[in-house]
């Protein structure tokens, strides 16, 4: 019995070692492109592709990080992206949580039909109606303005749906008690619902922030002038224009990732939990 137990234990630890080797191997595949990006961003163009790869450049070229700002108006692109990200996230939080409260906790005529319309549009890919949307926006004179992206992305059916899912879990007794105490719906929303919904608000904030920061197709369609472009467009422009300056391209790419890396690392636990829960609830 004792011998068998020891054998089993040995087998378990061999399995464990094998598992770790596998996981570390996969991790390497997942981060290798980013490490290569980081390492190349400190190299001269002629050394980027040198093989075998020199992971830590012996003679790091910091100037790559200084040069990119002079080659393209990168700071403008970054500021534009921050502006859009912040405005859209705030508007989406406000408009979604407000509407979600109505759908979750209030009774009014036509509520269920309206909600069905919201949910139905989530299932339709944006790419299906992006052309008519563009024509409409052109009619409003909003093409080549930041306003176009703001109004298109500030009202999201997905945001309403997600916030509603969360509000549905808040017990009605709590709200009824507040109603008996004489609070009107607006105070209930602001004094009870909003403070309770911090996790939902944080989730929507992360999703919206990452979406707007990384959005490519929206800005590609709507923004033409250089002074309006976002970081993703700027990066792509940079790649097209300096297609052989690999060191510079990698430095610019690294810069574009930094805000997302910071957000992700500081909120990763929360981020991952929210993906898991939205995934399960569908």
């Amino acid at each position: 019995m004792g011998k068998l137990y020891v054998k089993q234990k040995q087998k378990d630890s061999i399995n464990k070692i094998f598992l770790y080797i596998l996981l570390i191997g996969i991790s390497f595949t997942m981060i290798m492109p980013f490490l290569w990006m980081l390492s190349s961003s400190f190299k001269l163009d002629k050394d980027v592709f040198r093989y075998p790869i020199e992971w830590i450049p012996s003679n790091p070229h910091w100037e790559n990080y200084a040069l990119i700002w002079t080659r393209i108006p990168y700071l403008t692109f970054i500021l534009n992206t921050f502006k859009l990200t912040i405005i859209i996230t705030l508007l989406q939080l406000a408009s979604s949580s407000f509407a979600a409260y109505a759908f979750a906790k209030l009774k009014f005529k036509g509520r269920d039909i309206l909600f069905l319309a919201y949910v139905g549009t989530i299932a339709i890919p944006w790419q299906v109606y992006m052309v008519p949307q563009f024509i409409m926006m052109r009619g409003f004179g909003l093409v080549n303005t930041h306003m176009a992206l703001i109004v298109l992305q500030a009202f999201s059916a997905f945001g309403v749906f997600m916030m509603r899912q969360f509000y549905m879990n808040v017990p009605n007794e709590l709200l009824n008690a507040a109603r008996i105490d004489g609070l009107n719906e607006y105070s209930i929303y602001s004094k009870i619902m909003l403070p309770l919904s911090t996790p939902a608000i944080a989730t929507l904030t992360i999703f919206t922030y990452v979406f707007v920061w990384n959005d490519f197709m929206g800005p590609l369609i709507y923004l033409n002038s250089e002074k309006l472009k976002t970081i993703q467009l700027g990066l792509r422009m940079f790649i097209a224009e300096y297609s052989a300056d690999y060191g510079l391209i990698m430095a610019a790419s690294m810069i574009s990732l930094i805000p997302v890396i910071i957000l992700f690392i500081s909120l990763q636990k929360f981020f991952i939990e929210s993906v898991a829960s939205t995934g399960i609830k569908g």
Partner: protein
Amino acid sequence: MTIKQKKELRSNLVGYSFLLPNFIGFLIFTFFPIIFSLLLGFTSWDGVNEIKFVGLNNFIHMAKDETFRISTFNTVYYTLGTVPLTLVCSLGLAVLLNSKIRGRNIFRTIFFFPYVASLVAVAVVWNMIFHPTMGPINSILSKIGIENLPGWTASTKWAMPTVILASIWKGMGYYMIIYLAALQGIPKYLYEVAELDGASKWKQFWHITRPMLTPATFFVSMMLTISCFKVFDLIFVMTNGGPGRATNVLVYHIYNQAFIHFKYGYSSAIALVLFAIVLIVTLIQFRMEKKWVSYM
């Protein structure tokens, strides 16, 4: 007006007042464009001259449009290449990470990161890694003696598999998280009982884990399929639809027809076809759901 009616009217108005800001935006910027796209698909319009109603002409034209045919094929190719492999990889990762190991959260974070990283940055680094003449992948391949080096995004044969590889790499962490959550929902006693009965790990996986995960698999495969049908950024940045038309997908074709050639009517018609395909595939998946998805 009775008191009851008054009360009802009041509660209706309160409800509408909460909904209004979002609803106006939703109506103008989402709902109208969707209706508009249904009409636009039956017209011919360059954005300047008058809109002409052309009936089914756009759809007839599509049958003769070789690029449309190729891009439909490519979209299906991309989807069939991406969905099953992502499913398998993300499930595999989730099972590996579900065992008791140190540093689980670090692995989880690393696997998930490509999903939040910007696509443009990711695409450019992939293009460099798979550079046909100078990239490290081909350097390694030639070192180990492979002679006919794949041309990756520069070759019509390899371009799509390269894009598929990049998309699996980017997406699998996200779906892994959904699988992990589902795995944690499986009651432990099922495994304990199986263990007592002497079931091997593989048997436990096949007879407990796999069936218990079918709702998650259903959800993941739906989300993945829809996201594959609307692929654009990855293609636009990595290959520009090329070489030739080797990676030209439907959304890329819609984009080109509308924003490069200003054929708004025709591109809307293609968008309608895209929508029909997504709808049909989703309906089929829902139909099949009863056959293989088991809920507790």
